[in-house]
């Protein structure tokens, strides 16, 4: 079937060889530093051994594209505080329940009696609200442009139905401002592997500021190993030719303009503001909050949430997840990696989430870096 994607070894070998030859033909011996923005890409790259296969000519760095990982300590504390309010049900996507806040995690709150439910879709949370009219159901809205429209759709339905016991704690984040913040922070990167499913919504033009403002090419990639290798090949070609541009290497899922229906829904439901990112701090224009007409469905307006952290932050516990999310270090460079911090006993979210860089490096054997 044409929509299934091959994982054949032959083309992979050919692409790996071509990429390494192209990169090594450049003047200078420094490896090319490419950042894969998306945690799903990190997972695929580690799972299929692409990072090792492309070294030493190519150094792949993980980026901030793991929504669970970039959720700040104070936002996790706020979610835990919500779960502790009597009569509330907190609904969340899976990985977030295990992320430690400054004192505990949602999982621990649940063990202590809080009603925390893992949902696959915001529509599931809305359904819980319909069936539990006497409970306040709060959906934890985490995720980037891929996920935010799905939560926006649930908010629009809830408002139309007057389902006033349904609200969202919006921790949604926009990705291009984060990429800009990383580059403005002085990261030295030669190219960016663009996030395929974010870009299915935003359109690839959202990344044009990379070549235009920073002189760095971007190749938007799908999630199969051949998709990634094809994108990296195109990226290296643009770097070597010194023709920075955005390459759409995932044309079956991504267009220049993206999903106009989803973008229009985001604009109807959310307004853009700043957001607090682990590792990046406060990033202007990267947050999405429900518009005032959704006030009754906005958990920040409905509930008194703690504004500051209650206990010891991940950084204070020695976690360098923030540095990993900026591409400043590889996971193995964190002193806790694989010792004090493992997927079984994670100190920080990059080791918790299945798409966190530390978890991917640990699981697929990149422990030596």
């Amino acid at each position, binding site marked *: 079937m*044409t*929509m*299934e*994607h*091959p*994982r*054949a*070894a*032959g*083309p*992979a*070998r*050919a692409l790996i*060889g071509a990429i390494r030859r192209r990169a090594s033909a450049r003047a200078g011996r420094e490896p090319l530093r490419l950042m894969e923005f*998306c*945690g*799903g890409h990190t*997972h695929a790259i580690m*799972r*299929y*051994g*692409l990072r090792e*296969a492309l070294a030493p000519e190519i150094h792949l760095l993980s980026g901030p594209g793991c*929504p*669970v990982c970039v959720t700040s300590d104070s936002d996790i504390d706020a979610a835990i505080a919500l779960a502790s309010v009597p009569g509330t049900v907190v609904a969340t*996507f*899976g*990985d977030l329940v295990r992320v430690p806040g400054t004192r505990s995690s949602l999982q621990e709150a649940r063990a202590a009696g809080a009603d925390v439910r893992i949902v*696959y*879709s*915001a*529509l599931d949370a809305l359904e819980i609200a319909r069936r539990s009219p006497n409970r306040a159901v709060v959906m934890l809205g*985490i*995720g*980037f442009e*891929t*996920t935010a*429209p*799905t939560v926006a*759709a649930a908010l629009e339905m809830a408002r139309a139905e007057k389902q006033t016991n349904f609200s969202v704690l919006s921790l949604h984040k926009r990705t291009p401002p984060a990429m800009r913040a990383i580059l403005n922070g002085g990261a030295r990167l030669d190219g960016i592997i663009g*996030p395929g*499913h*974010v870009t*299915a*919504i935003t359109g690839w033009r959202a990344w044009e500021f990379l070549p235009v403002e920073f002189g760095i090419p971007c190749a938007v990639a799908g*999630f*199969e*190993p051949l*998709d990634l290798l*094809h994108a990296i090949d195109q990226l290296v070609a643009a770097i070597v030719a010194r023709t920075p541009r955005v390459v759409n290497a995932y*044309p*079956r*899922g*991504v267009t220049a303009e993206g*999903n106009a*229906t*989803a973008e229009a*829904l985001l604009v109807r439901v959310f307004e853009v503001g700043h957001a607090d990112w682990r590792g990046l701090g406060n990033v202007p224009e990267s947050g999405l909050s429900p518009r005032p007409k959704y006030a009754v469905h906005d958990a920040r307006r409905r509930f008194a949430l703690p504004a500051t952290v209650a206990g010891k932050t991940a950084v204070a516990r020695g976690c360098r997840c923030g540095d990993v999310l900026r591409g400043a270090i590889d996971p193995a460079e964190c002193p806790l990696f694989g010792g004090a911090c493992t997927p079984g006993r994670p100190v920080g979210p990059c080791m918790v*989430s299945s*798409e966190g860089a530390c978890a991917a490096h640990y699981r697929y054997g990149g422990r030596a870096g």
Partner: protein
Amino acid sequence: MCLAIPLHITAIDGEWATVTRGGVARRVSLVLTPEARMGDHVLVHAGFAIAVLDEEEARATLALFAELENAHPRRAGDADTPAPSNDPPGADRPQ
């Protein structure tokens, strides 16, 4: 978080579609892709179809990879290759 899987639309009922993969059917919202039609493949994320896949582009990508395969046929003893997975393509669990 942003994982999305390609699924085949086998029925449409208003803003809802039945999508299937490997004989397993589920219901997804078409609110974000009102242009989706019967027989389309859509990317499904968190209960919603978020994009209609372009079949022509999918074929072109496959042809590109096939060309690479022909240009570099498999040789015995090749080692530096990502191990092919036994999972069905795109079967990674969306979250």
